[in-house]
C-alpha cells in the first residue's frame, strides 16, 4: 500500500474512534472503549488466516473512574496529535511521543510503557499498524542478504537494490517502516531467518546464499515488527518457504513462535506480521542429543520457560511437545554456533542440507 493510501485509510479510522465518543457523550453516556484482553489465555487460532489472534474475551474501559477517564483523555490527545502528524506528513518515535506529552497537563504520560500500551490499544481499535500513525519503532531493523531485488520509497526518492549485488557484506538494512518497501523479483528457493549474527555471517562466508539460492535474514534476537513484516511480505508475495534457525533453548523457540504465529503483544497484527508457513529448522533438542553438541545445563528459569511453553497454545503440537519434553529430560541447551565444534563447514555442508531435505524444502 502506498503511503498516501495508508494515510487515507488511517485518518477516518482514528476520527471514527473520536466520533464514537462524541456520540456517546451527546447521548449522555459515559464514553468507553472495548478491547480484547491481552493475555496468553486469550489468543486463538484463526482458521481462515492460519494465524493466532486475540480471542473473544473483551474488556470494557469506560471513563467512570478517574484512572479510566484519564486513559481515554490521553487517547483523545494522542489521536489529535496523530491527526496533526498525518496532515503535516511528519513522524516520530514512541519515545518522542512520550516526551511530547510533557505539555499535556492531566494527559501527560507517566511512563514510556504507558505510551506503548496506549498505541497498542489504538492499533487494535483501528485495525492498523502503528506505522500508519506515523510512529516509528525504536527497535533495530534486521539485515537481509540474498538473491532478491526490492524497491524502497524514501523521502529522497525510490531506491532499487539487489540484496547480493548492491549491498556490502553486511547486507541490506531493513527500514523501520516496511510499508515503504516493495519486493520486485528473486532467484531464491527459500528464506532462512537466523537468530545470531555469527551464524548469518557463517552462511554468507560459506556461500550458502549462492549455492542453495537462499535469502538470509538476520533476526537479531527477538525479531522486531518490521523484520516479521518482511518475512510475511516475501512469503506472501512469492510463496517462498521460510525456515527459522535459532539456538536450542526455550527463548529461541519463542523467536520462532513469534515469526510463525505472532507474538502475544501484537496478536491484533498477526495477519500482517505472522508467517504461518514458517518452519522450525533447529537447533532442535534432538540435535543436541544426536550430534552430541557442546551444551550448557538448563537453568531453573530455562526449565520454567519450557514448562510455560507446554501450556502455550502456539506450541500445542506433537512435534513441540516431544521436543520440549526431550529437552527437559536432557537438561541441556545448545547454541547455533555449537556446530562449529564439528568444523566450520559442518553446518552448511551437512546439517542444513540434511534438515532442509527432511523438511522437504530441498529435494534430496
Amino acid at each position, binding site marked *: 500500500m502506498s503511503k498516501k493510501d495508508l494515510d487515507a485509510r488511517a485518518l477516518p479510522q482514528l476520527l471514527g474512534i473520536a466520533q464514537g465518543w462524541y456520540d456517546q457523550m451527546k447521548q449522555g453516556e459515559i464514553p468507553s472503549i472495548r478491547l480484547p484482553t491481552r493475555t496468553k489465555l486469550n489468543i486463538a487460532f484463526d482458521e481462515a488466516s492460519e494465524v493466532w489472534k486475540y480471542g473473544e474475551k473483551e474488556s470494557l474501559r469506560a471513563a467512570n473512574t478517574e484512572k479510566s477517564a484519564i486513559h*481515554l483523555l490521553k487517547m483523545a490527545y494522542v489521536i489529535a496529535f496523530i*491527526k496533526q502528524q498525518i496532515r503535516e506528513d511528519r513522524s516520530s518515535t514512541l519515545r518522542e511521543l512520550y516526551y511530547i506529552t510533557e505539555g499535556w497537563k492531566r494527559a501527560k504520560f507517566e511512563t514510556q510503557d504507558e505510551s506503548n500500551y496506549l498505541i497498542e490499544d489504538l492499533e487494535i481499535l483501528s485495525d492498523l499498524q502503528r506505522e500508519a500513525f506515523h510512529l516509528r519503532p525504536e527497535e533495530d531493523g534486521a539485515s537481509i542478504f540474498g538473491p532478491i531485488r526490492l524497491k524502497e520509497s524514501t523521502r529522497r526518492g525510490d531506491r532499487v537494490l539487489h540484496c547480493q549485488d548492491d549491498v556490502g557484506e553486511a547486507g541490506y538494512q531493513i527500514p523501520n517502516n516496511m510499508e515503504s518497501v516493495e519486493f520486485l523479483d528473486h532467484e531464491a528457493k527459500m528464506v532462512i531467518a537466523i537468530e545470531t549474527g555469527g551464524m548469518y555471517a557463517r552462511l554468507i562466508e560459506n556461500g550458502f546464499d549462492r549455492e542453495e539460492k537462499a535469502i538470509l535474514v538476520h533476526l537479531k534476537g527477538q525479531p522486531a515488527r518490521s523484520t516479521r513484516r518482511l518475512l510475511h511480505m516475501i512469503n506472501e508475495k512469492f510463496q517462498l518457504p521460510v525456515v527459522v534457525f535459532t539456538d536450542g533453548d526455550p527463548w529461541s523457540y519463542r523467536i520462532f513462535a513469534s515469526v510463525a504465529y505472532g507474538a502475544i503483544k501484537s496478536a491484533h497484527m498477526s495477519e500482517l506480521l505472522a508467517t504461518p508457513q514458517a518452519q522450525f529448522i533447529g537447533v532442535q533438542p534432538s540435535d543436541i542429543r544426536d550430534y552430541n553438541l557442546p551444551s550448557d545445563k538448563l537453568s531453573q528459569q530455562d526449565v520454567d520457560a519450557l514448562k510455560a511453553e507446554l501450556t502455550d497454545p502456539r506450541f500445542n503440537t506433537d512435534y513441540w511437545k516431544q521436543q520440549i519434553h526431550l529437552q527437559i529430560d536432557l537438561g541441556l541447551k545448545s547454541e547455533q554456533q555449537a556446530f562449529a565444534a564439528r568444523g566450520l563447514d559442518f553446518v552448511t555442508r551437512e546439517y542444513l542440507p540434511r534438515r532442509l531435505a527432511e523438511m522437504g524444502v530441498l529435494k534430496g
Partner: protein
Amino acid sequence: MEIAEELARKQRSISVAEFFEKNKHLLGFDSPTRGIITTVKEAVDNALDACEEAGVLPDIFVQVRKISDDVFRIGVEDNGPGIVPEQIPPVFGKLLYGSRFHQIKQSRGQQGIGISAAILYAQLTTGMPAVIISRTDARKKAHRFELMIKTEANEPDVRSRQQVDWDRPHGTRVEIEFKSTLAAKKRLLEYLRYTSVVNPHARITADIDGEISTFERVSAEAIPCPKAIQPHPHGIELGTLKRMLSAQESMTLEVFLVENFSRVGKQVAREICEKARLSGEQKISMLQPADQKRLLSAMQSVQIPAPPASVCLSPIGEDLIRRSMDKEFSLDFVAARTRPSSVYSGHPFVVEAAIGYGGKLNADDKALILRFANRVPLLYQPGACAITNTIAGVNWKLYNISQQTLPAGPIIILVHVASTNVPFTSESKDAIASIPEIEREIGLGLKDLGRELKLFLSRRDKKRVADDRARAICAVIPEIAIKVGEIVEKPAPDTQAIEGKIMRKVIAKRRTVNGTVQIEVNNYTSQPLSLKIYDFSPDAATDALPKPAFSEKSGDEYTRVWNCELAAGGTWTARYGGRGPGHLDLQGIEEKQKVVMDLDV
C-alpha cells in the same frame, strides 16, 4: 579425718536474699538502666494491687530525683489502704513474703519478691536504707520506717520507726536510693503510659527529675477486686495433691474433694471416686501412693466445668479499652474484644484484644503492639512472646492489612492476658509462654477484630470509589469532550447530562478561567433544595454576581455566603473577578449526597 567429714564442715544454708543478691539479672536488675524501670514497675504494681483490694480509685505519684551523678532517689506513692505497721518490715524487708503467692486469683505481683529485691539491690549499691511511709486511716498518724535487709538471714533490719504527719489520709510511699542512670527515661514513660491504658481507672503522675507527665484516668469507677478461688482439679500436679492430702488426713475423700477444689460438688466428687475405683467414704489418710496416682488421673480425666473466672479474674472491658486507646492515640477506628474466659492446665484466663487504626499512627510503620499480662505492660523480649507470635500467625491480608511477618500500616494492636497464673517465660516477666489454649483465644479475638476492621476499611474505600467516580465525571469527562470536539471539528458536547444521569447528587464546581472565578451548583437529585453556598478565597469579589448574602474578611481570606433555592434538575451559577485559589462548601444537603469539586487543582 575422712575427706567426707572435712567436706561436711563446709556445708551451709544459703539465705534466699543472698541468692538473689548474687543473681540480680533473674529479677530484672541486671543493668542500672533497667533497674530503675524494674523498681518503678514493682512499686506501681504493688500500689495498683493494693488500691484494687481496697476498692479505691488509684492516684499514684512516681518521682525520680537525681541525687548525684549516678545516684537516683525513686519514690512511689499511692492512696491505697496502707499497711499496718507490724507488716511493714516483713513486706518490704524480706524476700518471698507476701499475700498473693498462695491465692488463686489475678494479681500483678505474686511472689513477694519484687519490692524487697529493689530494696536489697539499692542497699547493695548505695548502702542507704529504704524509707516507707504508710497510713491506714485518716484518724491515725502515718508510720515512717527506715529499713534495710539482713542478707544472710533474709530478715528485715529496722533502722528507725516513728509516727509522722502525712498529707494523704491513707496510702503508702516507698523511697529507694539506687545507683542508676536515666538512659531509659523514654521507656519508663512508655511503661507508665501503657500502664494507664490498661488501668483506665488509675491516675498516674510522674515527676522525672522535674519533668511532670500526667496520665489521667478515663473511668471513675474502681474495678472490682478479684477474689481467690480454690484450685481446679485439672490444674494440679501429683506433688501438690499429696501435700494437700497430708494436710487434712482425717477427712473422707469425698469431703476432701468438695472442700478443696473449685467446681467440685458431690456429684463430681463421686464421679472422680468411681473412676479412680476408690470409695468416697474412706479416710484420705488410708490412700496408698498407687491410689493417689489413680485419684489424680481420675480428677484430670473427669469432665469438670472451667473455674469461676468471673470471680477471680478482672478483665478491663471493651468499653474502657476503647476509651483509653482513643485517649492516647486519637484513632480513626478502634474496636475491642473481651473473650469469654477459658482455661489451661486448670488455670482460668481471659484474653482481651483491641485494634486501632489511623489517627496519630504512622502509615509506614509496622503495627504498634502493646502486650499486657494482668494489667501490667510487657516491655522486653517481644520476639519470645506468645502474643507477638500469635499476631504474626494471623493472616492479616484477609482483612486487607499488609503484612510482613507482623501486620504493617497505621495499626495498633493491644492484647491483654489476665489469669490466676500467667505463664511467663522467665521470672523477669517479660514474655508469655506459648500455651496453645491462650494462643487460640488471642487468635480468635484478633480475627474477630480483623473482620470489623475490614468492614471499616471497605466502607472507607467505598466512599473513596464514589469520590473517584465523581472526579472522573465532573473533572475529566468535560476535558475529553473538549478534545474530542477538536478532533471531529465540532463544538464540544455538553457533559451535564452525564453528570446528572450518573451522579444523582448535588454537584458544586469551582473553576478559575482568565481571571474569573466561576461557581456552578447543579441539583441532580429529585428534590428541590434550600442551600447555603460558602466560598473562601483571598479575592475581595466586590463584583460578585449574584451578590452574596454575606461577605466578611477574616485574616487574609474572605468568606462569602449565598443562599440558593434550587429545584430538582436546577442549576445555579455565580462569578466574580479573581485569580486566587479558593475553597467551596455547601450546607443544606446530606454529606453523602454532595460532591464539591475544585477544577483548578
